[in-house]
C-alpha cells in the first residue's frame, strides 16, 4: 500500500468539500422540515394557552427522527448507477469518503440541529412572550441522560448509514423493515429460547431482553456495535461494483 493511500489531509479536505456540496440539500431540507413540524406542533399544542412545553421531549423526538433520516440519506450517489460510477471513481480513498460523510451526518447534522432547535425555541419564546405566556429555558446540558441519548442516536444512525450503502433504492424504508424483522426475530428468540434455557424465571412478558441486566448489557453492546457498523459500511463501499 502506498503511503497516503488511506488518508491524506489535503485530499480529505477536498473530499469533505465535495461531500458537503452533495449533502447540503438533504441536510437543510431535513432540518427545516423537522424544526418546522416541531414549530407547528408547538403552536397547535400550547401556543395559545399557558401549558408548559416539554422542550426536552421535543428536542429528542426531532433529533432522533431527523438524524435517522439524514443517515439513511447518506451516500446519495449510490441511488443511481450513473452517479455511483462518478462516486467510485472520485480520487479519494474509501476511508476519506466515509469519514467525510460521517462528519456531516454524525456530527454536522447534530450541531446544525441544536442551532436550529435553539432558533425554534427563540421563536416559540417570542410568540408566547407576545401572548403573555411563560416559557421554560431549554438547556440540553441539564439532561443527565445526554450521553446515553447520543450513544443511542449514533447507534441507530450507524444502522441507517450502513443501510444507505447496502440498499441502492429506498434505503430508509428497507432499513426500517430490516430493523423490525431483526427485532421480531430477537424477541421470539428471547421469548422461546434464551430465557427458557438460561433463566428459570421465564415469563412471556419479562424475558432476557427486557431484564435489568440486559439494559446495562445493551449500552455496552452499543459501544461494540457502532464501530462494527462503521467497519461494515467501509467494506460494503470497498466491495461495491457497478
Amino acid at each position: 500500500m502506498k503511503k497516503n493511500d488511506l488518508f491524506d489531509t489535503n485530499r480529505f479536505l477536498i473530499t469533505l468539500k465535495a461531500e458537503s456540496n452533495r449533502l447540503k440539500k438533504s441536510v437543510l431540507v431535513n432540518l427545516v422540515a423537522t424544526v418546522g413540524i416541531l414549530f407547528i406542533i408547538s403552536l397547535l399544542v400550547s401556543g395559545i394557552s399557558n401549558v408548559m412545553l416539554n422542550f426536552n421531549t421535543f428536542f429528542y423526538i426531532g433529533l432522533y427522527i431527523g438524524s435517522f433520516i439524514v443517515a439513511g440519506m447518506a451516500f446519495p450517489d449510490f441511488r443511481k448507477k450513473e452517479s455511483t460510477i462518478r462516486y467510485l471513481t472520485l480520487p479519494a480513498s474509501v476511508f476519506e469518503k466515509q469519514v467525510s460523510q460521517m462528519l456531516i451526518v454524525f456530527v454536522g447534522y447534530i450541531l446544525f440541529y441544536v442551532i436550529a432547535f435553539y432558533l425554534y425555541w427563540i421563536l416559540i419564546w417570542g410568540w408566547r412572550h407576545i401572548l403573555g405566556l411563560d416559557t421554560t429555558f431549554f438547556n440540553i446540558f441539564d439532561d443527565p441522560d445526554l450521553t446515553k441519548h447520543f450513544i443511542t442516536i449514533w447507534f441507530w444512525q450507524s444502522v441507517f448509514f450502513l443501510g444507505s450503502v447496502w440498499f441502492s433504492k429506498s434505503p430508509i424504508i428497507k432499513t426500517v423493515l430490516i430493523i423490525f424483522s431483526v427485532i421480531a426475530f430477537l424477541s421470539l428468540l428471547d421469548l422461546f429460547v434464551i430465557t427458557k434455557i438460561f433463566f428459570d424465571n421465564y415469563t412471556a412478558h419479562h424475558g432476557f431482553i427486557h431484564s435489568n441486566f440486559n439494559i446495562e448489557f445493551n449500552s455496552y453492546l452499543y459501544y461494540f456495535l457502532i464501530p462494527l457498523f462503521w467497519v461494515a459500511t467501509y467494506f460494503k463501499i470497498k466491495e461495491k461494483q457497478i
Partner: protein
Amino acid sequence: MIQINQMYFAYKKDIPLFENLSLEINSGGIYGLLGKNGAGKTSLIKIISGLLFPHNGNVNVLGFNPPKRSPLFLSQLILLPEEFDLPPMSIKRYEEVFSSFYPDFDKDKFKLYLAKFDLDSFVLQNMNTLSYGQKKKALLSFAFASNTKLLLLDEPTNGLDIPSKAVFRKLCIEASDNDKVFIISTHQVKDVERLLDQIIIIDKGKIVSNQSINEISQTYKFEFVDSLDNISFLYSEQMLDGYKIITDNSTNEPSQIDIELYFNAIINKNK
C-alpha cells in the same frame, strides 16, 4: 501502461463474458475499442477503471491494481460513461469542487475547451438544466483539461452535434501525447476514424485484433470495385453500386483505412 493477462470475468456464474482475455497497451495514443453490442466493451472499461473486479487473471493499469481503487490511481484516470449523472451545480462550481482531485488539471485549458464547445456562456448555469449534448461537452472539456494519463471514453460522440464532433476530434488530438492513453469505445466509427492510432476489436469475450492504424494500412488495402470478377480479395461487402473489398497491400505503402469494413472483416473471420 495497461496489462491484462488471462483475465476471467462473468456477470453470471458459468456464463463468462471474458475468458482468458489478454491485452497489452504499452505506449500512449488514442485507442479505439470496437465490438458488437454486448461484446463487453463497457465491461472492459469498467474493469480497467476498477468499477468491476475480474474473477481471475492479472490486471495492471498504470502500475496499480484497479479493484483497490487507490486514490493515486483514480487521480490518473477519468472515465466518461455513455450515461452519466451530474451533481446539481454550475460548470464553474463543478470545476472548483472536482478539479482539485486531479493534480495536473489545467484551469486555462478548461476555459479554452469550454469556449471551443460554445459553452463559455453557460458556466454559471446549473448543469442539470443543460441539454445532454451540452453536459457531455462540459464533461469532455473537464476530462481533457484534467491531463490524466488514462482517459476512458464510452461513446463520446453520442449526443454531440455535427460541429461539436469536429471540436471533439481536434481536442482529442490536442490533449493527447505519448504519455497518455485515450481509450474510445464506440459504434460511431466514422466520428473517430481519422483520430485513432490503434484499433482494438473485442468479440466473444476475446481481443480478436489489436493493431495500429499504420500496421493495418500497410498490411491491407481498402478499395471499392464495380465487380469481383478476376479480383483476389480477403473480404468483400456488396454495396448498391459495387463492392467494398480488402486486399493484401503488396506495396506496403499506407492506404486509407475503412474501419467499418475492417471491423466487419475481423468479426466475420472470427465467426
